[in-house]
């Protein structure tokens, strides 16, 4: 792998490059920028909810815009571009090819993201990350709503282009000496998530256009006043976005498959079961979308079908957890920073999954649906599992990207604070949901339990905020002034035996 920051280059050389590691670097910087932007919004939300009444946000409209842009940013502008960054760096190397299959397309897919981000941030829409009609048609103020729609449209196209590129790179460009059963599990992760993108995204892309024409008043697909049906939108939306949660989580699991065997100094317990679980998730993930819609008034039969479809995906997720634990079992584990993040991420993945089962069981969902329980549930995935896996991987690839080591002590402090903060915020939010607090509310009545739990969550969020400042300082400082890394074995794990590919790109 190239050492980007050791040989300084003018920035425009990176910007106009189509080489996979350059595009990877662009993805990386963009995604981290949005991590910090979106994260700041979260701190604003938590500060506001510290106590009933208005704290730091002047009115509910601003609050609604903030949580909408927070969610949109972290899902579409942090998690997805971060995965693309890692994929760009590693997938070509893992399949032993000189670049992505279509380098220009790769750069184009990346360059669609900044304008989309600008549209979303300049618009600052208020209709939540799922833009449900009829609110989004008759009530959401423009041009913010329209800018959001265009932003998402662009991001959808970018995702599909990126996914096509990964699929072709992996299936068509892999070295002829390698069978598909020899590519690392992380490459399998990118193959599976890319295939899900290609199947899932077009549905939402169509729904977005229909939403736009509905807003313009020229159609009434989802507008009951014109004979349309808002529930149709919910189906189209969740048909894309339940599978999309696997698009988000699968690459992060793939990154853990890189970290955990290496730092346990043992081969992966079962490669085949990892592959099987990825493939299962990408198929069965399509059978559960309407578990988000139990409360819309679905029939008993419909609810049952989607409950069964949801529960059917659980064994595959559980197999990953087993594989990780079995790999670590009896390993000579070295708890360096990347390993701590990966292991913490698995623990949170497990807890999150347990909460997901509760949501899926239809009578229980009527207690949890649209309360803070759901907020806690999916943040244990998006923050606890996906961001943890991603950040761990960022520490892991840091020496390869910069040629320098990050500061290990601060890396561990970052982990410990984030782990504690995540538990404080999101475990507490599960309980808060059981006490009935709805999500997406700017203010709440002074119910003592609600106040106490909101305060715990806010304190937890501030701890995460502090840890992220440490993270930023560590990254910036170490990329310029860190100790030069031994790029053959930066973590002192002894030998390259378990590296399934050359650590340096042979054709570079």
């Amino acid at each position: 792998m190239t050492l980007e920051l050791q040989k300084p280059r003018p920035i425009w050389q990176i910007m106009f490059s189509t080489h996979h590691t350059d595009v990877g670097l662009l993805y990386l910087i963009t995604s981290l920028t949005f991590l910090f932007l979106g994260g700041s919004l979260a701190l604003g939300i938590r500060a506001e909810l510290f106590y009933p009444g208005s704290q730091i946000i002047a009115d509910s409209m601003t609050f609604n815009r903030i949580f909408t842009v927070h969610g949109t940013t972290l899902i579409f502008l942090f998690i997805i571009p971060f995965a693309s960054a890692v994929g760009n760096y590693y997938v070509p190397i893992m399949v032993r090819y000189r670049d992505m299959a279509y380098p220009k397309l790769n750069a184009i897919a990346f360059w669609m993201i900044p304008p989309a981000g600008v549209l979303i941030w300049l618009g600052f829409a208020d209709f939540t990350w799922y833009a449900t009609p009829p609110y989004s048609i008759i009530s959401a103020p423009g041009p913010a709503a329209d800018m959001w729609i265009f932003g998402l449209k662009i991001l959808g196209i970018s995702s599909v282009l990126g996914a096509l590129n990964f699929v072709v790179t992996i299936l068509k460009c892999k070295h002829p000496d390698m069978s598909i059963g020899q590519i690392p599990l992380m490459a399998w992760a990118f193959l599976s998530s890319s295939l899900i993108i290609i199947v899932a995204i077009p549905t939402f892309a169509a729904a977005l256009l229909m939403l736009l024409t509905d807003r313009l008043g020229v159609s009434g697909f989802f507008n009951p006043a014109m004979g349309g049906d808002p529930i149709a939108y919910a189906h189209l939306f969740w048909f894309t976005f339940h599978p999309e949660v696997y698009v988000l989580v699968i690459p992060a699991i793939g990154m853990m498959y890189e970290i955990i065997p290496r730092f346990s100094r043992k081969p992966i317990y079962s490669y085949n079961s990892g592959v099987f679980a990825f493939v299962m998730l990408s198929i069965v993930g399509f059978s559960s979308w309407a578990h988000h819609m139990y409360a819309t008034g679905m029939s008993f039969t419909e609810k049952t079908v989607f409950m069964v479809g949801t529960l059917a995906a659980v064994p595959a997720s559980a197999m990953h957890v087993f594989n990780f634990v079995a790999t670590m079992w009896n390993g000579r584990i070295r708890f360096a920073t990347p390993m701590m993040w990966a292991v913490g991420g698995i623990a949170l993945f497990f807890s999150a999954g347990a909460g997901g089962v509760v949501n899926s069981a239809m009578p229980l969902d009527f207690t949890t649906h649209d309360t803070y329980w759901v907020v806690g549930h999916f943040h244990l995935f998006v923050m606890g599992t996906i961001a943890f896996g991603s950040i761990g991987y960022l520490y892991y690839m840091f020496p390869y990207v910069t040629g320098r080591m990050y500061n290990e002590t601060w890396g561990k402090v970052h982990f410990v604070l984030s782990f504690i903060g995540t538990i404080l915020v999101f475990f507490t939010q599960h309980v808060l949901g059981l006490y009935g607090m709805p999500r997406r509310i700017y203010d709440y009545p002074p119910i003592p339990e609600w106040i106490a739990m909101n305060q715990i969550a806010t304190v937890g969020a501030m701890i995460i905020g502090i840890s992220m400042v440490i993270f930023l300082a560590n990254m910036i400082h170490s990329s310029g002034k860190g100790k030069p890394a031994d790029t053959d074995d930066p973590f002192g794990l002894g030998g390259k035996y378990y590296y399934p590919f050359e650590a340096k790109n042979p054709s570079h």
Partner: protein
Amino acid sequence: MSGHSNWPEWIYVAVVIALMTWVGAEAWEAERLVEHVPADAKTIIVTGQQWFWTFEHEDGTKEIGELHVEVGKAYKFEIVSTDVNHSFNIHDYVVLIDAIPGRVNTVWFAPDKVGEHDIQCREYCGLIHYNMRGTLYVTEPLS
């Protein structure tokens, strides 16, 4: 599979499948029971609109933001919306169903104790969603 026997994983997967089957079966049974509306339930029409709830009893009386019901009787709510989606929720009685324009959704409950409970909207509906609240009063039977 990489040269070693894999029986621990098979057992583990079997346990997970068994657990999920059990959860699914219990959920199916419970949901079937709670969806069965008693024949003598009185109907209350609930209208959600930005940003308050209106209740219409069988005798035609209307209440706004407050709902009075009698302890020990069963009630069936018919929920509608005049503008955007809302979600009618009495958390203490696990009453929850969306109010969606163009549809009538039903849910029922039978309050078993005299008391007051919060009514709230649990689906984002815009500016004052956070304060789309009301109160349920469960009272002794009048007659």
